[in-house]
């Protein structure tokens, strides 16, 4: 899967699930401090990843993801590995 496809899926999910504006989502946007996503929301992101990209995510892994770019990279790396 191309990185652009991954970015589109992630952005569409963030916009739809958390009613965010597209311009709020930038590479260096902080998931917790700027988008104000809570740990409960990260559970939704884990579920999205498992559903859309087909790999399991340990909760401890997602804790390390801080920015939107880190989220793209995390998914891209794991998708390309499999």
């Amino acid at each position, binding site marked *: 899967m191309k990185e652009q496809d991954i970015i589109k899926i992630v952005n569409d999910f963030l916009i739809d*699930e*958390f*009613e*965010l504006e597209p311009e709020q989502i930038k590479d260096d946007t902080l998931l917790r401090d700027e*988008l*104000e*996503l*809570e*740990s*409960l*929301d*990260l*559970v939704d992101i*884990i579920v999205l990843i498992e559903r859309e990209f087909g790999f399991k995510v340990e*909760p*401890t892994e*997602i*804790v390390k993801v801080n920015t939107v770019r880190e989220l793209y990279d995390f998914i891209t790396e794991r998708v390309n590995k499999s």
Partner: protein
Amino acid sequence: MPQWTGKTRGGIAGYKSFVFILKYFGISSAYFFLRFVVLYFLIFAPKAFKASYYFLNKRLHFSPFKSFRYVSKTFYKLGQVLIDKVAFLSGLNKNYTFDFDGEEHLRQLADETGGVLIGVHAGSWEIAGHLLKRLNTKINIVMFADEHERIEGFLTQMYKDKNVNFILIGKNDYSHLFQIAEALKNREMIAIHGDRFLPGTNTLSKEFFGKNALFPAGPFLIPLKYNVPVSFVMAMKETSKHYHFYATPPKKFQSPKNPDDRNRLVNIMLEEYIENLENILMKYPDQWFNFYDFWGDIK
């Protein structure tokens, strides 16, 4: 701001001592013995003493003498609550009587949607948990892993025949959130405290008895995130062998997806929780069992 360290004083040894006294001498003897234990703690637990005295003197504006007297009463009441827990385990619960305010609300939750019950470290949450057995529904008690580890054997025994599951909150681990989501999807009940948090977790600062204190955000986010009703519950000790269980009418807030809207509602929910808690504590000032610098104001 100072916060709860995640450690709870006392443990299995304390429980075993009470079990021994209860078994051979009965509840009244255990209460008598407790007076000496209280004296020990008044002298050798200065941090707990200061925290309790601060609450009574600075937040409830009791006079110094009355505050001192109520610190003793608080320690004694906590000891009684611990003894009562053990008495319940030993099958002596028939000696106790109860009043229920709001049981019908919880029955409604149990029968229809499931929901979140937010409690507090005041009165006895274990007795509250025991009383929830009457609902005949699955209750998931959310607690800190460290707290659970210290009294695991005790809890297992306390709830061995009951429809109770423990969901443990660990550090840097979200597995408890998946379990909470699953339980609510199955229309079960989640019971969680709304007054303590671990370092590094999200908090909200709110006025509580005239001065801002920190409260965990998590318990108040759960009902919004999963679109389920919430009720504030507590079981307060009224006389030696009488408890009063309180449950507020379940309230279902909107379930906004946008974090800004959600934060607004979390604040409203927390304010309602605090208002309810203040009313209860004014009635039972000797049952506030958070023995640390809750307001971050002790010099």
